[in-house]
């Protein structure tokens, strides 16, 4: 493994002589309880040269965020231990041992940070202008008037329209993308030499992600800052990074210039990361998974899977003019209607996958929940086996409930933490009277757990003992107990790491091949949708923009919105070369 690590500074000789930030043998551990210590970062070394972008890439638990917090001295003091031999050298000073007061002076003024969630990083009870001015007055010693003028300038620089008006807006009055722009404005207001961006685009829609990435790249060039960009997404990194550091389990697996890492990766893990993610250009029968690479099986040539819907495919679900409105109260008697879904019609063929893409607020999740009757539909019908699911009485619908099932986005939230996996999987069978007795149900649960690739011991465990991908498998097993015809996957793989995502997508595909399930696959991730779907439906503002076979829509989008959406997919390294 060690031979795979290249000297970090080699590619850029001039900058390497005097890098802005030099991390040497950084070790961070966390106290779990009195006797146990978890080592999150295990002795890593890398440099951040002046005027360049370094990307720190890794999946959850790789220690990438801990590294960034350690640089800023923001680790929780009560349970974190930074090894005394660690060195974080910035301007001749070791940040790891710097006293708190001096570190605070440095933070915000010379090194600043952008966090993942703009909604929670801004204080909702102060205007954005106030929060910007506060930073300026604190670090630059400006007067109130100077600070306000500068705040307007910075807001204009990060591309907020009408900054004179927006400066008095509260965070909730701005959109997610604008909030993130304000966060960036705050970070660069004091002209820092270094900007640490921790997953700054993960919570944003794909079109806004594109804008924010462009903004960060632009600011970096204009101000000649150094940017430490932390992300789990190699495609995002490919577009902006000069250097790439790949981390896993607290160790650096590979580092070097972006070109070298992307074109000739040396480490098996880096290779796996590059291959596991579904690509727009290829659609293998199965996605490669990380274990293949680690065990050295490597990427064999696999045949491509044909996709698409034939006109004579039998239809399982026929949705006509589906509409869903929410009412909010206005005034004393007034009600305002908000149409989340407007007049949506589509047909779902048996054994095929319908991909549903759109940005947040497009109504794609509402469509899924309405079909499950977790929301009551306002208008429209959904014909299943000749009957309208939406018009049935709840009692009648009970028999059909098991035929349509849903897998939620967050596997950490969708399993009851107080139930064992056995209880979770057998509960639906109990409710619907599947299996003659407890014995038969338990047998079935074991079979299904084996089917989704979980060991039998899992039956006795609690959800908190499993990783995200394993929990999603439990959720899938729970749905399978009812032998559904239609499975709605609501962002089911979005919260998972790239390597785990590939495994779950493979599992879903295997189940479709075996049982002939029909999927409605809801996602904001266009590459994943392209991989798994036969047909793609694009939604915007509650309406259908375009429906077509997935190859067709990606090759030849007809609507301008679809074109815009497809153009903002991060292309990765290929986009630059």
């Amino acid at each position, binding site marked *: 493994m060690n031979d795979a690590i290249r000297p970090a500074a080699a590619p850029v000789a001039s900058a390497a002589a005097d890098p802005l930030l030099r991390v040497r043998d950084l070790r961070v551990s*966390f106290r779990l309880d009195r006797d146990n210590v978890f080592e999150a970062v295990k002795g890593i070394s890398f440099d951040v040269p002046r005027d360049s972008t370094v990307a720190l890439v890794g999946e959850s638990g790789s220690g990438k965020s801990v590294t960034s917090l350690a640089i800023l001295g923001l680790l929780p003091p009560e349970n974190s231990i930074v090894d005394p031999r660690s060195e974080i050298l910035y301007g001749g000073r070791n940040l790891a041992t710097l006293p708190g007061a001096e570190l605070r002076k440095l933070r915000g003024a010379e090194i600043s940070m952008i966090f993942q969630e703009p909604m929670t990083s801004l204080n909702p009870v102060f205007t954005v202008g106030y929060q910007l001015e506060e930073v300026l007055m604190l670090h630059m010693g400006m007067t109130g008037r100077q600070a306000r003028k500068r705040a307007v300038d910075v807001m204009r620089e990060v591309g907020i329209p009408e900054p004179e008006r927006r400066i008095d807006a509260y965070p909730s009055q701005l959109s997610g993308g604008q909030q993130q722009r304000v966060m960036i404005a705050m970070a660069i207001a004091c002209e820092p030499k270094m900007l640490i961006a921790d997953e700054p685009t993960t919570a944003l829609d794909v079109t806004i992600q594109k804008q924010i990435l462009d903004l960060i790249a632009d600011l970096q060039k204009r101000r000649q800052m150094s940017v430490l960009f932390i992300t789990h997404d190699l495609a995002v990194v490919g577009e902006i990074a000069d250097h790439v550091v790949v981390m896993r389990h607290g160790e650096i697996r590979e580092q070097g210039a972006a070109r070298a890492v992307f074109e000739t990766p040396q480490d098996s893990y880096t290779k796996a990361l590059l291959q596991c993610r579904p690509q727009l250009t290829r659609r293998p029968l199965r996605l490669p998974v990380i274990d293949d690479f680690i065990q050295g099986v490597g990427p064999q040539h696999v045949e491509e899977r044909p996709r698409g819907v034939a006109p004579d495919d039998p239809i399982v679900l026929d949705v006509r003019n589906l509409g869903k409105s929410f009412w909010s109260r206005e005034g004393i008697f007034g009600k305002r209607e908000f149409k989340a879904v407007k007049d949506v019609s589509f047909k779902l063929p048996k054994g095929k996958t319908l991909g549903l893409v759109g940005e947040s607020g497009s109504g794609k999740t509402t469509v899924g929940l309405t079909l499950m009757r977790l929301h009551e539909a306002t208008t429209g019908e959904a014909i299943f086996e000749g009957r309208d699911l939406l018009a049935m009485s709840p009692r009648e619908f009970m028999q059909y409930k098991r035929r349509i099932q*849903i897998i939620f986005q967050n596997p950490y939230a969708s399993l009851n933490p107080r139930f064992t996996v*056995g209880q979770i999987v057998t509960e639906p069978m109990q409710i619907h009277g599947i299996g003659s007795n407890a*014995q038969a149900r338990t047998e079935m649960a074991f079979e299904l757990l084996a089917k989704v690739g979980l060991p039998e011991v899992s039956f*006795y465990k609690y959800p908190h003992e499993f990783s995200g991908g394993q929990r999603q498998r439990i959720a899938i097993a729970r749905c399978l107990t009812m032998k559904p015809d239609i499975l709605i996957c609501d962002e089911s793989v979005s919260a998972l790491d790239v390597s785990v995502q590939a495994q779950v997508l493979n599992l879903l595909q295997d189940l479709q091949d075996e049982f002939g399930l029909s999927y409605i696959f809801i996602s904001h991730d266009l590459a994943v949708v392209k991989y798994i779907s036969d047909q793609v439906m694009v939604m915007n503002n509650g309406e259908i923009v375009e429906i077509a076979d997935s190859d067709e829509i990606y090759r030849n989008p007809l609507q301008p919105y679809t074109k815009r959406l497809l153009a903002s997919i991060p292309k990765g390294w290929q986009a630059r070369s």
Partner: protein
Amino acid sequence: MATDLATLRSPVPPVRREIPHTVSPGLWTLGWRRLRSDRVGMVSLAIVALFILMMTLSGTGLVARDWAREVGVNYAPPSWAGAAPAGGLLATPDTGVVTQGAAGAPAPEFKSSVVDPLADVLAELKGEKPAGGASAGDEKSVDPLADVMADIRKGKPVAEAAAEERRATLPMGGDKWGRDVLKKTIKGSETSIFVGLASAFVATFLGSLFGALAGYYGRWVDDFFNWFYSVFSSIPDLLLILAVAAVLQQKGTMTIVLILGLTGWTGVFRLIRAEYLKHKSREYVQAADAIGASNPRRMFMHIFPNVSHVVLVQLSILVVAFIKAEVILSFLGFGVPVDVVSWGSMLNEAQNELILGKWWQLVAAGTAMAILVTAFSLFTDALRDALDPKLKGRAGA
């Protein structure tokens, strides 16, 4: 104990294929482990357990069964403070004689020495007792002390006999009638802790049930319970307690339990309602809806175990509050009847004794209560930390 708990709750019926597995720690087991590593919490738990053990022993009559026996001279000082000066002893003969009638009774368990001297008369006046019962003579029915006087006239050496048995000092001193304060405190704990626990159970049950219904169903159910809550909490607490006491019309331990239970559910209601509001839109509840779980099933099988730690913490907070409330009620005279002893009634007596400089009853009851309440509060804090570790602001790795 940790593994025992987990085994008990394990829902899995015995399977034909035996799969070797270790019992996985559930969230309760993990909570128990965290609690066990909390030294302060465990010490408090031990103290609380001791008190509850004491209460049980006293309730089953194994200790302090004869608390009402007048074993010492009246106002006997604590042994460790030394015998009282002569002035205190002088009071012995006359009071000893007055209470003799009760103390001399041969019954194995002493109800109380404080017998209402007018009880017979009142009963007669109310017509409950046939007036003819007093055939022994008019004189007796009028003079409640007739028997005693007769005894004295016969020249029974009662006073001397009683004085012989009585000790000059008692471990924690004696009260006005010479009863052992230590035993009184133990017997009093029975009432006080029972009232605290039982009324906390009643209040938490009502609060959780109303909160669950209001939070889960929302709409008019929520409006109704909120309205009920608002009206209820707009009345001053003490007034409410007096009103319930007036309606129930009888003094007794169960009355206090009802009073406190019926008035104390409001805080729990707000909290549980908020928890249910939060949880009902969680994905695991939606997932339960998707698999066809009914409303009651979602409410009590799915959500309740996830908010039960809040209920448990509220329960223990209420126990502390209600032990104190009982004391206040008894102090004000709305508490337990005269023939029952509780820490509150002891403090009530102590206010008169204090004027005479007899401080030990106050100290005994006060100390016992302070220790229990402090231990229980510390235990509650430890419990909350153990069950909701996120509150302590742990940073994730």
